[in-house]
């Protein structure tokens, strides 16, 4: 059972933009550098328990911008597990009714921020039998807040085609950019007892001249499970997430 948490905090720079001397830097990228990491655990016995929790915050700014990047990682997960291997398959009939859609698993008191997973295991078989009980849980809190991100052009009309090129200043046509960006990432938590679950919280902010892209969503949670019970005890499961 592994629980790996990774945190990446790239390039937090502050201050206002000053004109750098030539030569010009490489052109700014329009694509956020997304670098998802995974750390799957491989169990040669065939029982795979892999938990990896990845937070990626990658800010790309080829111009000098003020960036305040804060990553808060909070694991808040409650697992209520009862295992009773001695009880046969008899259940009090009064307990039969159970809502098909049960939102009580989401903790209302914490604005649905934590997941309560009741897992009642009641399996009792003799020899020559297979018993599987597999739980895969991804629980991710990625409540991002971004404020004050702005891009403005203060270049004026200018008389030169280079008027807006920050690397070739024309004193007769002053040009300038204002760029300011700030983003708060979310929280990521994962059930420590689940099999093959991956969750992540990542927020990217890419800002370059005249194009501003702020991505706060686009999260992925994915569980995959395969069980084969055909005379041998074989199981295989794994998860992906970004």
């Amino acid at each position: 059972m592994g629980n790996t948490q990774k945190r990446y905090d790239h390039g937090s720079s502050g201050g206002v933009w000053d004109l750098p001397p030539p030569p010009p830097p490489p052109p700014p990228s329009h694509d956020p550098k997304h670098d998802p990491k995974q750390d799957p655990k491989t169990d040669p016995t065939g029982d795979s328990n892999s938990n990896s929790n990845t937070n990626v915050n990658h800010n790309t700014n080829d111009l000098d911008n003020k960036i305040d990047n804060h990553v808060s990682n909070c694991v808040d997960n409650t697992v209520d597990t009862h295992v009773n291997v001695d009880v046969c398959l008899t259940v009090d009939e009064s307990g039969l009714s159970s809502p098909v859609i049960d939102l009580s698993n989401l903790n209302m008191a914490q604005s649905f921020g934590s997941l309560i997973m009741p897992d009642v295991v009641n399996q009792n078989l003799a020899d020559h039998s297979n018993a599987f009980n597999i739980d895969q849980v991804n629980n991710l809190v990625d409540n991002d807040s971004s404020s004050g991100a702005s891009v403005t052009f203060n270049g004026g009309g200018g008389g030169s085609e280079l008027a807006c090129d920050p690397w070739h200043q024309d004193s007769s046509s002053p040009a300038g950019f204002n760029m300011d960006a700030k983003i708060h990432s979310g929280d990521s938590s994962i059930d420590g007892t689940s099999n093959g679950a991956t969750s992540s919280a990542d927020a990217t902010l890419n800002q370059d001249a005249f194009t501003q892209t702020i991505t706060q969503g686009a999260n992925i949670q994915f569980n995959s499970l395969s069980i084969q019970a055909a005379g041998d005890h074989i199981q295989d499961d794994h998860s992906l997430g970004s």
Partner: protein
Amino acid sequence: MMPGGTTEILWHFIGHLRIIDDISREHVEYDGSETRRSDEDSPHKKLLDDKADDPDQLDDSARVLMPDSVPNDDFQFQRVHALRADAAHQIAAHMDLSPPQPLLPLFRPPAIGVASGGGDPNITVTCQPGGEQTLAQAHQINALMDNDSLLPAEASPEILQGIARLDTDVGDALLNMADNANDHIPQQWQIPQDDAGAVTFVTDHDQNLVVGNGTPEMHSVEPGYYLNGMLQADPPPPPDQITVPDFPLPPADYGHDLGQWAIAGNNTSVNAALIVDLTESTRTMIVMGDYFKTDAIFQTNSTMDHDHINAAGGDALPFVAGGNQATNIADFTQLPGIYAELSATFAGPQWHVDVVNGDYYDVHTLTQTNYLFDNDVVVQNSSDTHFEAISGGNELGNVAQIFDGSIQYDLIIIAGAYHGMNLIFQNNILLNDDQIKLLASGSDPTQSVVSGDNTLSNTATIERYGGDNIQPMNDDVNSVVTAVADGKTTLDPSYGDIIDGSGGTFNVLYVTGNYYDVNALWQTNVTSDVNVVMQLLGKPADGLDAIHPIGNETQSVVTGQDSLSNEAIIVDVAPTNTYVNGQTYGDTILVQANLLPDKDPAISGDVHSLVPELVAFVNDAQDSTPATQPLAAPAPHEDPVASIMH
């Protein structure tokens, strides 16, 4: 991060379903004609390969059916499509599905009524403890809280209070929607979602059938293909005949023109599950007690989508505030038993009997749930940029496949009752109330809004092979049961004429108690995508046209286009022939509902109250924002927001 990622996975999965299903059938035919015949009686076996003495080698190499797992591609999902295309060839090569070779006359099974040649003509019976039982339960849960805010300045206390109030009311609205959907599912079918609870429910349900003398329930239907509650005479092509779209899907490209794009919806939640149950894939089953078989599908789609859209200052395109699609498809398919078209042979001369003392369990329960909260507050205030704000676009997926059993037994004898049930529950809940405001000043942008266009779909298939040829008990069959129950070690060759065989060793499972054969799936998607989006587009700065084209400004908001889907298939391979000594009970249950709950006043009030607060907040933030650019000249254009708001 990957448009179409989980969608690709789903297609891969669905492809496997049909591929495995087809190969299962081919393999059964293959297994019944070659593998079984190679396992001849003892004198002949010595003339064959010694490996035939090890039944495991025969079973595992030729009878196990299993696709590759869904690939752990580490974001290389484009490979999935190719894998799907090659899957059939890979599995076929692995299992050596070459056509069976003609057997030499020496090894040809005797005709019915004739004992095997040479030696003792009697049937020898070997009993041993055995019988592979399975209890499998799994839960797959995704829970994502992606409640984002994008504001031009730090949120004021009023804004924060408004967002907190909205979160609370969203929770209450979802609980109400869940209660409403639960109310449409018969109370007696709301059962614990685990093995023990399912078995107990089946026992209780079948007992009620006995008490009610087999009277069908209120929601009993004829088997067939149902679309939104209507039986269809001409069902569409099955999934394996549908053209697979090209992958990967192209990412959305909003160009580089000036304007504002807000993607606060466009979320995907998908559950996909397959259970292939081969445990009862015998030629014959004998039930000394009662026989129960029930198939049931319950499907609901609940949608709340009340939007308020205002646009001014631009060239507004028709808003897409509706266009939501909710679909329920249920398919109860009955196919002939897998031995129906294969010739039967003498059942002998060796019988291997696996004995289970007590009840036998073949139970699979799978729960798949996606919880997604994507309630966003987005304010875009710009004039000189191409501004994309993506706060939606989340993808949640659960995929599971369970393969249980093998083509192993020729005969199953149950001293007690047979309890069989296939259950599929599929529910989608979408809360997608939005408040959207687009304002432009100093330019004439194209304005577009998609706040609807959501898709909710449930597709469930229970595909049964066999189980439809049920005959009453007769003296001959009863004599076979008695002989096995008494533990006789030799039988008269005439016993081999009573029950169909496939030649070679005759494998029997004898259960002294009841037999529980249960497959149950629960699939649920709950998505809350409540958004408040404001776009304020000002006049581009003077001189900007020198370096950037002006005149194609755009304001675009997507708060809908959410997709919630459940796909489930249970392939239940039942005995080709069944003899029942007691009573036979069967039923097919279907509930399909597309629900449109009443408008929730709390959420509507929240999103309404947030808008004026945001307007005041934007104005205040703009008025108080100091110049941050020491080299910047005074802004050459007027304040766009102030000119609109004041």
